[in-house]
């Protein structure tokens, strides 16, 4: 991934790998790049000249945003056992040591502009009213908190937060809508995004159609072949789908291309990032747009049983649906937060996407976080049967919550997820997305450990219509 910046050149070899992970510069022959920069200029093997790498006590990374390194460290020394007092994020976009803005100079201004625009709408009643109205009438919020009666009998009570009922069938649209409204406010007429299997692309194309904005989706040529119907859908919705042929012609290459586009067209264009990853302010923004999930859950829980949930469970790819559910409850120490990642073929196989379990800290896509990297600091190609969890990184806030011990992270194999997919379909008549099935699969291990009557809320982050063919093939139904 070409976006990693060189600023965090590790100076102390003894610490855990905090090197910026630098993928090799893109091949010169990438004529698909519409950027006016030649790819040679985007060679991040060279340190950025404004960087002043200075080690500071306890951290082997430096922050290029201030010359006074002390200010950047102060936060971690206070007593921080109370989650309500944590700065999530702090003024520099950090969650503890995670997060940040590891991006080329050209994007710094865009990110700052985005951040101040976001802060201005946060408390703007007109914006919030417009957003609320669209979430209600267009997306179909609020989504129900559904008591999944059948898998119970004794044991904990399982409730599903039905994000699968949203327009387009997943939680993704909450963020897409928020960002597109923000882009409009910024006067941007052009929206870009990258997509792997097509879900985020379709969500982006959908909101662009709704608001009449030009939409360009970058997709790896290989993915385009495998997902021809999703490509067609995006085109039907009026988006332009640009194939990316460089590299392995998959998601990470599409992301590079999208970034290149943004760097070139920063004044007119907004980049809709689909998850709580990426440089500040994206992790915070995307979380804020999704936190309606947790807020509704709190109110619905109060209505249904007069209390709070005891345990929250969600699948974690980039981490947006999980943050959406968790956010409102992070400060409630009596609520357990559980994230479930993809173990693919198994943690020992090397073919998985269990970033928080098996990853190490590094910088990817502009943020410091856990990520799957090899001994040379190169990104490992992850694997999961579900495209949405097939991400080698994870949102920095999840890395933070894990290190603080506030949230627990487990993982589940492809096979367990497929079993859960079939089980919930047959027991509840709800076909969950394969991503969601990972969280559902974890219930098998979780429930026996919980006392009767414990309230468990699981985020049913998407519907599984898109996965039916895959599942039927693997389950041999």
């Amino acid at each position, binding site marked *: 991934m070409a976006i990693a910046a060189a600023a965090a050149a590790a100076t102390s070899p003894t610490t855990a790998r905090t090197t910026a992970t630098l993928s090799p510069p893109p091949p010169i022959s990438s004529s698909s790049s519409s950027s006016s920069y030649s790819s040679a200029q985007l060679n991040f093997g060279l340190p950025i000249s404004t960087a002043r790498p200075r080690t500071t006590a306890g951290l082997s990374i430096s922050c290029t945003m201030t010359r006074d390194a002390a200010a950047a460290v102060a936060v971690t020394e206070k007593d921080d056992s109370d989650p309500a007092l944590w700065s999530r994020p702090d003024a520099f976009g950090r969650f503890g040591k995670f997060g940040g803005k590891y991006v080329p100079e050209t994007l710094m201004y865009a990110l700052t502009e985005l951040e101040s625009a976001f802060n201005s709408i946060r408390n703007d009643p007109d914006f919030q009213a417009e957003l609320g109205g669209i979430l209600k*009438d267009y997306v179909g919020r609020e989504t*129900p*908190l559904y008591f999944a009666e059948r898998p119970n009998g004794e044991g904990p009570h399982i409730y599903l937060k*039905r994000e699968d009922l949203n*327009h387009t069938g997943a939680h993704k649209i909450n963020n897409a809508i928020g960002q597109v409204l923000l882009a409009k406010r910024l006067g941007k007429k052009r929206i870009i995004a990258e997509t792997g299997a097509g879900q985020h692309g379709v969500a982006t194309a959908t909101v662009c159609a709704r608001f009449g904005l030009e939409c360009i989706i970058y997709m790896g040529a290989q993915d385009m072949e495998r997902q021809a119907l999703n490509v067609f*859908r995006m085109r039907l*919705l009026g988006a332009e789908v640009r194939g990316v042929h460089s590299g392995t012609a998959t998601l990470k290459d599409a992301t590079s291309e999208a970034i290149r586009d943004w760097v070139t067209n920063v004044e007119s264009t907004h980049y809709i990032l689909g998850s709580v990853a990426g440089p500040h302010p994206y992790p915070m923004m995307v979380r804020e747009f999704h936190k309606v999930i947790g807020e509704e859950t709190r109110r619905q829980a109060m209505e249904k049983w007069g209390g709070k949930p005891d345990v929250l469970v969600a699948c974690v790819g980039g981490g947006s649906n999980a943050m959406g559910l968790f956010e409102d409850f992070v400060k409630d120490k009596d609520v357990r937060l559980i994230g479930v990642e993809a173990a693919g073929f198994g943690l020992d196989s090397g073919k998985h996407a269990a970033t928080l379990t098996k990853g190490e800290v590094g910088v990817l896509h502009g943020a410091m976080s856990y990520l799957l990297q090899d001994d040379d600091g190169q990104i490992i190609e992850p694997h999961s049967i579900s495209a949405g969890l097939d991400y080698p990184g994870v949102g920095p806030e999840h890395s933070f919550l894990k290190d603080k011990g506030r949230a627990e992270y487990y993982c589940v194999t492809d096979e367990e997820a497929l079993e859960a997919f079939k089980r919930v379909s*047959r027991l509840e008549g*709800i076909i969950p997305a394969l991503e969601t099935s990972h969280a559902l699969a974890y219930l098998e291990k979780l429930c026996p450990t919980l006392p009767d009557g414990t309230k468990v809320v699981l985020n049913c982050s998407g519907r599984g219509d898109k996965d039916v063919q895959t599942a*039927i093939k693997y389950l041999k139904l």
Partner: protein
Amino acid sequence: METHHFHFKTRRHNYPQVVCANHRVTTSKSNVNPSVLRLHNYGNPTADLAKERAVSADETKRPSTGKFGRFGGKFVPETLISCLEQLEVVFHQVLQDPEFQEELSTALNDYVGRETPLYYAERLTAHYKAQNMGRGPDIYIKREDLAHCGAHKMNNALAQAMIAKRMGLTAVVAATGAGQHGVATASACAKLGLSCTIFMSAADMEKQPSNVDLMTLLGAKVEPVRPTAGSFKDATSDSIRDWTEKLGEVYYLAGTAVGPHPCPTMVREFQSVIGRETRRQAAEKWGGTPDAVVACVGSGSNALGIFHEFVRDPTVRLIGVEAAGFGLNTGKHAATLAAGEVGVYHGAMSYLLQDEEGQITCPHSVGVGMEYPGVAPELSFLKETGRMEFYSASDEEAVEAYRRVARLEGILPALEASHAFAYLEKLCPTMPDGAKIIISCSGRGEKDTETVFNYPIS
């Protein structure tokens, strides 16, 4: 082999002569008086719902005929009559039972995701206004596409599955055309722990394979209808046959408002939640009622679901849009109300598509759910009394509408619903500025992307 000869009088309001070779057809035992409009179902819509139901329950203490004017009825073999009467009794019981109503209400909210929004389609409205010098109606979309399983079918499937459970039955059988009703039924059965068999014609299975996969995943058994040709009408016949064989074990879950009484009434009753919500939402949004309500008409369940509430409001135009297929004059269409004649089919008297010999024709539409050669008897009644207007849209117009709504609103409407959207092209120029149109988006169109993809662009 002797051919069956069904000959119907279509112009006079008499009961037709029905000659059947293989069974004795009777109407129900009650007194039949077609000139008396038995409108107990059309109570005062502003009255308390429970009161309305109490009234109609009163009036139906004896088994009713299920007539809408001269339409409807129970044209079925003897074996089914007692079954239907029992069903009717249970139906009225559950309407009165607060526990059932509460369970249903919770399920509709938490499981199905009601209430569905009434969404102001800003760009679609602007599109039509732009074509008419900035003047035109305001278009609102009733988003049944957001219901669980992606169509309005769930409202009815869930309620009836609950009835099956109450009757102590453990198996459900249903017929499906496009597969939406099959998926909804399979879902509801999975949730309630009932075993489920869905009859679907082999041709339809090919046209909507994604729905077949969904049903299989949900644990239902999908029975292809023999012979291999055929469509929803044959699937319905097969499933009724299956039901007749296994009476007492199996519940026949009607997916749409056709069939012998009480099926049309039941389906309409459970779908009428759509209209009730719409009225309240309209009042909230603009403090009034819509000027026109537009819905696609295949067999009629989504149309009745939204129309029923407004039947007694003379200022509300009720507009049904059928499938004109390749064109009304080609014979390859499914526009029953426009081109059909009155007869008896699947146990009810209604308009239907038949040839000169009274044989049921095979309908065609790009929207598979529209391909039914009959129509709900209640809609036939609304047509005859002039309460409802009906038009039709061709395959091409429907596909065009699909693309238009996708591009302008980011919503993929089911091809069935696209017929209703297609009619906006003709309707909007005739409506005054600021008039309120509510269009029922009865389902989502992800299932139809491949069809639209393969559709030849003219």
